[in-house]
């Protein structure tokens, strides 16, 4: 579904990613782990069009998306959440959710301005979907609050909900449970698993190894910008090089 071929990225001559290649298969939950500064977020940026790789290719559903604009990639069904919060702080949670959903209805400005029945039905469907998502992600009580007034953890959950509003086929999650309460982590894990069973593919950066072990079918390990291991979670967990990179320093 997603093919990363020889992606290389340098910042001012400093290598951040070197010749990274791997494939995410349709229907799986893949994990991307590695120590702080190993290039995980840079790789996400290259895949989603926020950075142009210096070399290499990114192919999504047989289409070359290397260096396409982020919004185009999102329209193709590949969305992401960020490590740093990116919500509209002065809009309410529900307004944030609507904004995230509306981008993908293919409406034109003129048709959006007229309160036709079709628009009303679409809006209602969007609100229902938003309500369900907020419920599933454990933050149902905050719909009318300004997003900027939520705590860090709640904004993180809002971001996941916003990424899912577009009903994407592949979602890149950058540390989805950082700052989230352990009990809520359990229910989010369950929810992501259910979404996965319904057909959504995930690529997840996460430092919480328990979450990676419980969720991921396969794990890719980056260290200093290079892919040093890949395989099922238990195998990667026992790999000497991985242990050294992740726990040793």
């Amino acid at each position: 579904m997603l093919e990363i071929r020889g992606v290389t990225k340098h910042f001012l001559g400093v290598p951040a990613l070197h010749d990274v290649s791997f494939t995410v298969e349709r229907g799986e939950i893949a994990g991307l782990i590695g120590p702080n500064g190993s290039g995980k977020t840079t790789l996400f940026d290259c895949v989603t069009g926020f950075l142009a790789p210096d070399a290499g290719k990114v192919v999504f559903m047989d289409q070359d998306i290397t260096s396409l604009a982020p919004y185009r990639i999102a329209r193709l069904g590949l969305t992401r959440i960020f490590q740093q919060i990116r919500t509209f702080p002065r809009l309410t949670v529900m307004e944030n959710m609507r904004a995230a959903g509306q981008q993908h209805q293919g409406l034109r400005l003129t048709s959006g301005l007229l309160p036709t029945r079709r628009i009303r039905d679409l809006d209602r469907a969007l609100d229902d979907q938003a309500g369900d998502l907020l419920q599933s992600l454990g933050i149902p009580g905050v719909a009318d609050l300004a997003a900027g007034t939520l705590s860090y953890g709640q904004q993180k959950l809002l971001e996941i909900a916003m990424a899912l509003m577009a009903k994407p086929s592949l979602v890149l999650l950058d540390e989805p449970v950082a700052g989230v309460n352990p009990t809520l982590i359990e229910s989010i894990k369950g929810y992501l698993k259910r979404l996965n069973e319904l057909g959504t593919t995930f690529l997840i950066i996460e430092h919480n190894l328990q979450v990676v072990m419980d969720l991921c079918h396969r794990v890719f390990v980056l260290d200093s910008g290079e892919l040093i291991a890949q395989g099922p979670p238990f195998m990667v967990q026992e790999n000497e090089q991985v242990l050294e990179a992740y726990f040793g320093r």
Partner: protein
Amino acid sequence: MSGDPVLEIVGLYAGYRNRGVLFDVSARILSGTITAVVGPNGAGKSTLLKAVAGLAECWKGSILFKGQDILGSEPGEILAMGISMVPQGRCNFPLMTVQENLEMGAYTRRDSAVHIDLDMMKERFPVLKSKKALLAGNLSGGEQQILEMAMALMLKPSLLLLDEPSLGLGPGPMRRVFQEVQRIAAEGTSVIMVEQNAKRALEISDQALVLDLGKVWMSGSGQEILANPQVKKRYLGG
């Protein structure tokens, strides 16, 4: 651990503008101890730290720091009295060097001992000494967290407030950050730490508060809270 509380919070109601977040919260923090604040997202944990630092609105109750009521004091005054805070997420100056960041930590100090303390701080955290000329933004996540704690310590606080020091850190750096927190407390600075890595935090804490919906749901020693089956189920992921 002495018997005198460095901080005593009594019946505190706090929040932002017209939104209440904390309701009737009380706590006693003894000097040289680590207190963990755990609970669900949106429970009011960060707000509790902000209230102590003078960054949230408080409507009722009192916050006694070394016996003096600091409720209503300006953040700058509270800082000068000896309460430092390291907010959630990255909070250094990424385009300044490590050395300059440490100097910024001492920004409000006007005494001549700053340079001695700068040298001491670099001895105390050798990683900061070896990387003093690097831009802070180029340090690893764990190193940046340690830098931020060192910046806060430049004011020689008697109380250090840490909002999720382990956020976004891998297992190795996380372990090292928690070790530093233990060392800071052992050297006499009391620490109040909000953490979602609740198990790890409780293991190293003398005392813990479980907040939920803005109220103290339970308090006790770190071990007691850790062993409580209700807490385990509701807040620690079973």
